Protein backbone atom coordinates (compact mmCIF):
# COMPACT_ATOMS: atom_id res chain seq x y z
CA UNK A 1 0.00 0.00 0.00
CA UNK A 2 1.33 3.43 -0.83
CA UNK A 3 1.51 6.32 1.60
CA UNK A 4 0.33 9.83 0.72
CA UNK A 5 3.19 11.37 -1.34
CA UNK A 6 4.28 13.96 1.22
CA UNK A 7 4.46 11.39 4.02
CA UNK A 8 6.32 8.97 1.77
CA UNK A 9 8.83 11.70 0.96
CA UNK A 10 9.48 12.39 4.66
CA UNK A 11 9.80 8.69 5.47
CA UNK A 12 12.30 8.18 2.62
CA UNK A 13 14.23 11.27 3.62
CA UNK A 14 14.57 10.28 7.28
CA UNK A 15 15.35 6.67 6.35
CA UNK A 16 18.48 7.89 4.53
CA UNK A 17 19.78 9.92 7.50
CA UNK A 18 22.45 9.09 10.07
CA UNK A 19 21.49 8.88 13.75
CA UNK A 20 22.79 12.42 14.35
CA UNK A 21 20.84 13.80 11.39
CA UNK A 22 17.69 12.11 12.64
CA UNK A 23 18.10 13.75 16.04
CA UNK A 24 18.79 17.13 14.41
CA UNK A 25 15.67 16.76 12.27
CA UNK A 26 13.51 15.96 15.31
CA UNK A 27 15.01 18.95 17.14
CA UNK A 28 14.34 21.25 14.17
CA UNK A 29 10.74 19.98 13.98
CA UNK A 30 10.29 20.51 17.71
CA UNK A 31 11.67 24.05 17.56
CA UNK A 32 9.44 25.09 14.67
CA UNK A 33 6.33 23.41 16.07
CA UNK A 34 3.41 25.79 15.50
CA UNK A 35 1.32 27.06 18.40
CA UNK A 36 -2.34 26.15 18.55
CA UNK A 37 -4.42 28.75 16.64
CA UNK A 38 -6.26 31.22 18.87
CA UNK A 39 -9.71 30.07 17.76
CA UNK A 40 -9.06 26.59 19.11
CA UNK A 41 -7.82 27.61 22.54
CA UNK A 42 -11.25 27.60 24.13
CA UNK A 43 -11.95 24.16 22.70
CA UNK A 44 -8.63 23.00 24.11
CA UNK A 45 -9.49 24.09 27.64
CA UNK A 46 -12.55 21.85 27.66
CA UNK A 47 -10.39 18.78 27.22
CA UNK A 48 -8.82 16.93 30.06
CA UNK A 49 -5.09 16.31 30.16
CA UNK A 50 -3.89 12.83 30.97
CA UNK A 51 -1.65 12.82 34.06
CA UNK A 52 1.71 11.11 34.68
CA UNK A 53 4.21 9.82 32.14
CA UNK A 54 2.34 10.60 29.01
CA UNK A 55 2.64 13.90 27.24
CA UNK A 56 -0.81 15.37 26.69
CA UNK A 57 -1.35 15.48 22.93
CA UNK A 58 -4.36 17.49 21.81
CA UNK A 59 -5.49 17.24 18.26
CA UNK A 60 -8.14 18.96 16.15
CA UNK A 61 -9.16 18.32 12.55
CA UNK A 62 -10.39 21.13 10.30
CA UNK A 63 -12.10 20.13 7.09
CA UNK A 64 -11.11 22.02 3.94
CA UNK A 65 -13.46 22.81 1.00
CA UNK A 66 -11.74 20.12 -1.08
CA UNK A 67 -12.49 17.47 1.57
CA UNK A 68 -8.95 17.36 2.95
CA UNK A 69 -8.23 17.73 6.68
CA UNK A 70 -5.85 20.19 8.30
CA UNK A 71 -4.65 19.00 11.71
CA UNK A 72 -3.92 21.36 14.58
CA UNK A 73 -1.85 20.00 17.46
CA UNK A 74 -1.19 21.23 20.95
CA UNK A 75 1.87 19.60 22.48
CA UNK A 76 3.85 21.33 25.26
CA UNK A 77 7.36 22.62 24.48
CA UNK A 78 8.57 20.51 27.43
CA UNK A 79 8.09 17.47 25.20
CA UNK A 80 10.30 18.09 22.16
CA UNK A 81 10.54 14.43 21.20
CA UNK A 82 6.78 14.08 21.02
CA UNK A 83 6.58 17.34 19.06
CA UNK A 84 9.25 16.11 16.65
CA UNK A 85 7.56 12.77 16.05
CA UNK A 86 4.10 14.31 15.72
CA UNK A 87 5.52 16.77 13.16
CA UNK A 88 6.30 13.89 10.82
CA UNK A 89 2.61 12.94 10.81
CA UNK A 90 1.42 16.53 10.76
CA UNK A 91 3.59 17.54 7.80
CA UNK A 92 3.02 14.25 6.06
CA UNK A 93 -0.74 14.10 6.33
CA UNK A 94 -2.01 17.68 6.47
CA UNK A 95 -4.47 18.28 3.65
CA UNK A 96 -5.02 14.58 2.98
CA UNK A 97 -8.50 13.14 2.51
CA UNK A 98 -9.96 11.05 5.36
CA UNK A 99 -9.70 7.90 3.20
CA UNK A 100 -5.99 8.47 2.69
CA UNK A 101 -5.42 9.03 6.40
CA UNK A 102 -7.32 5.89 7.34
CA UNK A 103 -5.28 3.88 4.85
CA UNK A 104 -1.91 4.68 6.47
CA UNK A 105 -0.64 1.41 7.94
CA UNK A 106 0.13 1.51 11.68
CA UNK A 107 3.71 0.39 11.04
CA UNK A 108 4.45 3.01 8.36
CA UNK A 109 7.30 4.40 10.48
CA UNK A 110 9.45 1.27 10.54
CA UNK A 111 11.59 2.12 7.47
CA UNK A 112 12.77 5.34 9.17
CA UNK A 113 14.63 3.25 11.76
CA UNK A 114 14.05 5.92 14.39
CA UNK A 115 14.75 3.48 17.19
CA UNK A 116 18.44 4.19 16.72
CA UNK A 117 17.75 7.77 17.81
CA UNK A 118 14.95 7.54 20.37
CA UNK A 119 13.68 4.76 22.61
CA UNK A 120 11.21 2.21 21.32
CA UNK A 121 8.68 3.31 23.92
CA UNK A 122 8.63 6.77 22.37
CA UNK A 123 8.30 5.42 18.86
CA UNK A 124 5.31 3.40 19.97
CA UNK A 125 3.73 6.81 20.47
CA UNK A 126 3.46 7.04 16.70
CA UNK A 127 0.82 4.36 16.80
CA UNK A 128 -1.08 6.42 19.35
CA UNK A 129 -0.89 9.72 17.47
CA UNK A 130 -1.79 8.09 14.15
CA UNK A 131 -4.73 6.28 15.76
CA UNK A 132 -5.84 9.60 17.20
CA UNK A 133 -5.64 11.28 13.76
CA UNK A 134 -7.65 8.46 12.22
CA UNK A 135 -10.25 8.84 14.93
CA UNK A 136 -10.52 12.55 14.08
CA UNK A 137 -10.76 11.75 10.35
CA UNK A 138 -13.58 9.22 10.56
CA UNK A 139 -16.49 11.69 11.00
CA UNK A 140 -15.30 13.54 7.88
CA UNK A 141 -15.67 10.56 5.57
CA UNK A 142 -17.99 11.42 2.67
CA UNK A 143 -21.25 9.52 2.75
CA UNK A 144 -21.41 7.31 -0.32
Amino acid at each position, binding site marked *: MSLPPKLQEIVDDIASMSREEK*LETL*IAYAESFPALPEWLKEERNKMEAVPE*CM*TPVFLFGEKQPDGGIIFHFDIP*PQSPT*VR*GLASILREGLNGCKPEEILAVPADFYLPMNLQEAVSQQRINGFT*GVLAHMKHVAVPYLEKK
Partner: protein
Amino acid sequence: MPYAHPEYLVDTEWVANHLKDAAVRIIESDEDPLLYAMGHIPGAAQVDWFSTLQDPLRRDFLSKEKFEEVASNLGITKDTTVVFYGDKSNWFACYALWLFQYYGYEKVRIMNGGRAKWEQEKRELVKDVPSFAKTTYQAKPADKSIRAFRDDVFKQIDSKKPLVDVRSPKEYSGELISMPAYPQEGATRGGHIPGAASIPWSQAVNEADSTFKTPEELTALYEGKGIKPDGDIIAYCRIGERSSLTWFVLKYLLGYKKVKNYDGSWTEWGNLVDAPIEK
Protein backbone atom coordinates in the same frame (compact mmCIF):
# COMPACT_ATOMS: atom_id res chain seq x y z
CA MET B 1 12.93 19.51 61.53
CA PRO B 2 15.55 19.35 58.77
CA TYR B 3 15.89 16.70 56.07
CA ALA B 4 17.91 13.72 57.30
CA HIS B 5 20.72 14.28 54.77
CA PRO B 6 20.25 17.82 53.45
CA GLU B 7 23.65 17.72 51.74
CA TYR B 8 22.15 15.60 48.96
CA LEU B 9 19.95 18.48 47.87
CA VAL B 10 21.11 21.77 46.35
CA ASP B 11 18.91 24.64 45.21
CA THR B 12 18.92 26.49 41.89
CA GLU B 13 20.77 29.42 43.48
CA TRP B 14 23.60 27.14 44.62
CA VAL B 15 23.89 25.74 41.10
CA ALA B 16 23.87 29.24 39.57
CA ASN B 17 26.76 30.11 41.87
CA HIS B 18 28.78 27.02 40.91
CA LEU B 19 28.51 27.08 37.13
CA LYS B 20 32.22 27.67 36.75
CA ASP B 21 33.34 25.52 39.67
CA ALA B 22 35.70 22.84 38.32
CA ALA B 23 34.91 20.62 41.30
CA VAL B 24 31.23 20.53 40.30
CA ARG B 25 29.73 18.71 37.34
CA ILE B 26 26.14 19.50 36.46
CA ILE B 27 24.29 16.77 34.58
CA GLU B 28 20.87 16.93 32.95
CA SER B 29 18.85 13.69 32.85
CA ASP B 30 15.39 13.94 31.31
CA GLU B 31 12.41 11.89 30.39
CA ASP B 32 12.48 13.68 27.03
CA PRO B 33 16.09 13.48 25.84
CA LEU B 34 15.71 16.27 23.25
CA LEU B 35 15.09 18.86 25.97
CA TYR B 36 18.82 19.20 26.54
CA ALA B 37 19.26 20.28 22.92
CA MET B 38 16.51 22.89 23.34
CA GLY B 39 18.66 24.59 25.99
CA HIS B 40 20.31 23.55 29.25
CA ILE B 41 22.09 25.01 32.28
CA PRO B 42 25.42 26.55 31.14
CA GLY B 43 28.16 23.96 31.32
CA ALA B 44 25.80 21.06 31.98
CA ALA B 45 26.41 17.67 30.40
CA GLN B 46 23.66 15.21 29.47
CA VAL B 47 23.02 11.60 30.28
CA ASP B 48 20.05 9.84 28.75
CA TRP B 49 18.53 6.89 30.60
CA PHE B 50 17.94 5.11 27.29
CA SER B 51 20.99 5.83 25.14
CA THR B 52 23.61 6.51 27.87
CA LEU B 53 22.70 4.46 30.91
CA GLN B 54 21.14 1.27 29.53
CA ASP B 55 22.88 -1.71 28.03
CA PRO B 56 22.02 -1.63 24.30
CA LEU B 57 21.30 -5.36 24.17
CA ARG B 58 20.19 -6.82 27.50
CA ARG B 59 17.48 -5.28 29.63
CA ASP B 60 19.85 -3.93 32.24
CA PHE B 61 21.96 -0.95 33.11
CA LEU B 62 25.47 -0.46 31.89
CA SER B 63 28.06 -2.85 33.14
CA LYS B 64 30.58 -1.48 35.65
CA GLU B 65 33.17 -1.11 32.87
CA LYS B 66 30.78 0.80 30.60
CA PHE B 67 29.72 2.98 33.50
CA GLU B 68 33.38 3.83 34.14
CA GLU B 69 33.66 4.86 30.50
CA VAL B 70 30.62 7.15 30.78
CA ALA B 71 31.93 8.70 34.01
CA SER B 72 35.40 9.15 32.53
CA ASN B 73 33.97 10.92 29.49
CA LEU B 74 32.09 13.23 31.82
CA GLY B 75 35.47 14.18 33.23
CA ILE B 76 34.63 13.30 36.80
CA THR B 77 36.76 11.89 39.58
CA LYS B 78 35.62 10.55 42.94
CA ASP B 79 36.02 14.07 44.33
CA THR B 80 33.77 15.80 41.81
CA THR B 81 30.40 16.91 43.16
CA VAL B 82 27.87 15.68 40.61
CA VAL B 83 24.57 17.56 40.54
CA PHE B 84 21.68 16.00 38.64
CA TYR B 85 18.62 17.87 37.41
CA GLY B 86 15.92 17.12 34.88
CA ASP B 87 12.35 17.41 33.70
CA LYS B 88 9.25 15.81 35.25
CA SER B 89 10.15 16.78 38.83
CA ASN B 90 13.56 15.12 38.55
CA TRP B 91 12.37 11.54 37.88
CA PHE B 92 15.27 10.71 35.64
CA ALA B 93 17.67 12.89 37.61
CA CYS B 94 16.93 10.66 40.61
CA TYR B 95 17.23 7.61 38.38
CA ALA B 96 20.71 8.68 37.21
CA LEU B 97 21.70 9.51 40.80
CA TRP B 98 20.52 6.07 41.89
CA LEU B 99 22.60 4.40 39.18
CA PHE B 100 25.68 6.44 40.13
CA GLN B 101 25.17 5.29 43.72
CA TYR B 102 24.71 1.72 42.51
CA TYR B 103 28.29 1.90 41.25
CA GLY B 104 29.47 3.49 44.46
CA TYR B 105 29.61 7.15 43.44
CA GLU B 106 29.21 9.14 46.67
CA LYS B 107 29.22 12.85 45.92
CA VAL B 108 25.86 13.11 44.19
CA ARG B 109 23.25 15.84 44.55
CA ILE B 110 19.81 16.65 43.20
CA MET B 111 18.95 20.21 42.19
CA ASN B 112 15.69 20.78 44.04
CA GLY B 113 12.88 21.69 41.61
CA GLY B 114 14.84 20.50 38.57
CA ARG B 115 14.49 21.98 35.13
CA ALA B 116 11.03 23.36 35.80
CA LYS B 117 12.18 25.57 38.68
CA TRP B 118 15.25 26.77 36.80
CA GLU B 119 12.96 27.79 33.90
CA GLN B 120 10.39 29.39 36.18
CA GLU B 121 13.12 31.57 37.65
CA LYS B 122 14.05 32.59 34.10
CA ARG B 123 17.63 31.53 34.60
CA GLU B 124 19.96 31.16 31.66
CA LEU B 125 19.71 28.21 29.29
CA VAL B 126 22.29 27.66 26.57
CA LYS B 127 22.75 25.33 23.62
CA ASP B 128 26.54 24.98 23.74
CA VAL B 129 27.61 21.44 24.51
CA PRO B 130 30.60 21.41 26.86
CA SER B 131 33.54 19.06 26.52
CA PHE B 132 35.61 17.80 29.40
CA ALA B 133 39.13 16.49 29.80
CA LYS B 134 38.75 12.74 30.08
CA THR B 135 39.50 11.16 33.43
CA THR B 136 40.07 7.56 34.43
CA TYR B 137 37.20 6.86 36.75
CA GLN B 138 37.15 3.63 38.70
CA ALA B 139 33.77 2.50 39.95
CA LYS B 140 33.03 0.27 42.90
CA PRO B 141 31.29 -3.09 42.47
CA ALA B 142 27.52 -2.78 42.14
CA ASP B 143 25.78 -2.03 45.44
CA LYS B 144 22.93 -4.53 45.46
CA SER B 145 21.59 -3.09 48.73
CA ILE B 146 19.80 -0.34 46.80
CA ARG B 147 18.48 -2.45 43.93
CA ALA B 148 15.75 -5.09 44.13
CA PHE B 149 15.40 -7.89 41.61
CA ARG B 150 12.25 -9.95 41.13
CA ASP B 151 13.42 -12.69 43.54
CA ASP B 152 13.84 -10.04 46.23
CA VAL B 153 10.24 -9.02 45.60
CA PHE B 154 8.96 -12.59 46.02
CA LYS B 155 10.84 -12.79 49.32
CA GLN B 156 9.46 -9.42 50.31
CA ILE B 157 5.89 -10.69 49.77
CA ASP B 158 6.55 -13.91 51.71
CA SER B 159 8.06 -12.09 54.66
CA LYS B 160 5.33 -9.42 54.56
CA LYS B 161 7.85 -6.60 54.39
CA PRO B 162 6.75 -3.22 53.00
CA LEU B 163 6.38 -2.52 49.30
CA VAL B 164 5.57 0.95 47.99
CA ASP B 165 3.77 1.34 44.68
CA VAL B 166 4.41 4.91 43.53
CA ARG B 167 2.35 4.84 40.33
CA SER B 168 -0.85 6.79 39.81
CA PRO B 169 -4.00 5.43 41.53
CA LYS B 170 -5.44 4.03 38.28
CA GLU B 171 -2.29 2.09 37.52
CA TYR B 172 -2.35 0.70 41.07
CA SER B 173 -5.95 -0.39 40.77
CA GLY B 174 -5.23 -2.07 37.46
CA GLU B 175 -7.63 0.16 35.55
CA LEU B 176 -4.73 1.37 33.43
CA ILE B 177 -1.61 -0.50 32.39
CA SER B 178 -0.17 2.45 30.56
CA MET B 179 -1.68 5.69 29.41
CA PRO B 180 -4.47 5.70 26.82
CA ALA B 181 -3.31 5.76 23.21
CA TYR B 182 0.31 5.30 24.27
CA PRO B 183 1.21 1.62 24.44
CA GLN B 184 4.53 2.55 26.03
CA GLU B 185 6.22 0.37 28.61
CA GLY B 186 3.48 -2.21 28.36
CA ALA B 187 2.55 -5.04 30.64
CA THR B 188 0.11 -7.83 29.87
CA ARG B 189 -1.57 -7.65 33.28
CA GLY B 190 -2.78 -4.73 35.39
CA GLY B 191 -2.87 -4.36 39.17
CA HIS B 192 -0.20 -4.19 41.87
CA ILE B 193 2.16 -6.42 43.85
CA PRO B 194 0.22 -8.01 46.73
CA GLY B 195 0.46 -6.00 49.92
CA ALA B 196 1.99 -2.90 48.30
CA ALA B 197 0.96 0.46 49.74
CA SER B 198 -0.17 3.03 47.18
CA ILE B 199 1.78 6.25 47.68
CA PRO B 200 2.00 8.05 44.32
CA TRP B 201 5.41 9.70 43.84
CA SER B 202 3.75 13.04 43.13
CA GLN B 203 2.61 13.37 46.73
CA ALA B 204 6.26 13.93 47.71
CA VAL B 205 6.61 16.95 45.43
CA ASN B 206 5.11 20.44 45.41
CA GLU B 207 3.14 20.83 42.23
CA ALA B 208 3.90 24.54 41.84
CA ASP B 209 7.69 24.36 41.52
CA SER B 210 8.57 20.64 41.54
CA THR B 211 10.54 20.97 44.81
CA PHE B 212 10.30 18.31 47.50
CA LYS B 213 7.82 18.71 50.31
CA THR B 214 8.95 19.55 53.83
CA PRO B 215 10.37 16.87 56.16
CA GLU B 216 7.19 17.09 58.27
CA GLU B 217 4.93 16.57 55.24
CA LEU B 218 7.03 13.68 53.96
CA THR B 219 7.13 11.98 57.34
CA ALA B 220 3.37 12.23 57.67
CA LEU B 221 2.89 10.93 54.13
CA TYR B 222 4.97 7.76 54.42
CA GLU B 223 4.50 6.91 58.08
CA GLY B 224 0.78 7.52 57.64
CA LYS B 225 0.75 4.67 55.13
CA GLY B 226 2.79 2.35 57.34
CA ILE B 227 6.16 2.96 55.68
CA LYS B 228 8.37 3.39 58.75
CA PRO B 229 12.06 4.42 59.05
CA ASP B 230 13.13 1.01 60.41
CA GLY B 231 11.40 -0.90 57.61
CA ASP B 232 13.13 -2.92 54.93
CA ILE B 233 11.45 -1.27 51.95
CA ILE B 234 11.12 -1.87 48.20
CA ALA B 235 9.71 0.85 45.95
CA TYR B 236 8.55 0.30 42.38
CA CYS B 237 6.63 1.99 39.55
CA ARG B 238 6.46 1.02 35.88
CA ILE B 239 10.07 1.17 34.73
CA GLY B 240 11.82 2.33 37.90
CA GLU B 241 12.21 6.04 37.25
CA ARG B 242 9.38 7.41 39.39
CA SER B 243 10.33 5.00 42.17
CA SER B 244 13.92 6.34 42.01
CA LEU B 245 12.43 9.64 43.16
CA THR B 246 10.64 7.94 46.06
CA TRP B 247 13.81 6.00 46.84
CA PHE B 248 15.73 9.31 47.03
CA VAL B 249 13.09 10.83 49.30
CA LEU B 250 13.04 7.89 51.70
CA LYS B 251 16.79 7.36 51.80
CA TYR B 252 18.17 10.89 51.82
CA LEU B 253 15.40 13.27 52.78
CA LEU B 254 13.94 11.04 55.51
CA GLY B 255 17.03 8.97 56.30
CA TYR B 256 15.50 5.49 56.00
CA LYS B 257 18.34 2.98 56.17
CA LYS B 258 17.06 0.12 54.03
CA VAL B 259 15.38 1.14 50.79
CA LYS B 260 15.64 -0.62 47.46
CA ASN B 261 14.38 0.44 44.05
CA TYR B 262 12.86 -2.38 42.01
CA ASP B 263 13.75 -1.13 38.52
CA GLY B 264 12.12 -4.10 36.78
CA SER B 265 8.91 -2.64 38.21
CA TRP B 266 5.54 -3.22 36.61
CA THR B 267 6.88 -3.88 33.11
CA GLU B 268 8.55 -6.95 34.61
CA TRP B 269 6.05 -7.97 37.31
CA GLY B 270 2.99 -7.48 35.10
CA ASN B 271 4.53 -9.75 32.48
CA LEU B 272 5.99 -12.38 34.80
CA VAL B 273 4.37 -15.80 34.50
CA ASP B 274 3.01 -17.13 37.81
CA ALA B 275 3.68 -13.91 39.75
CA PRO B 276 0.91 -12.99 42.21
CA ILE B 277 -1.08 -9.83 41.48
CA GLU B 278 -3.64 -7.96 43.54
CA LYS B 279 -6.32 -5.70 42.13
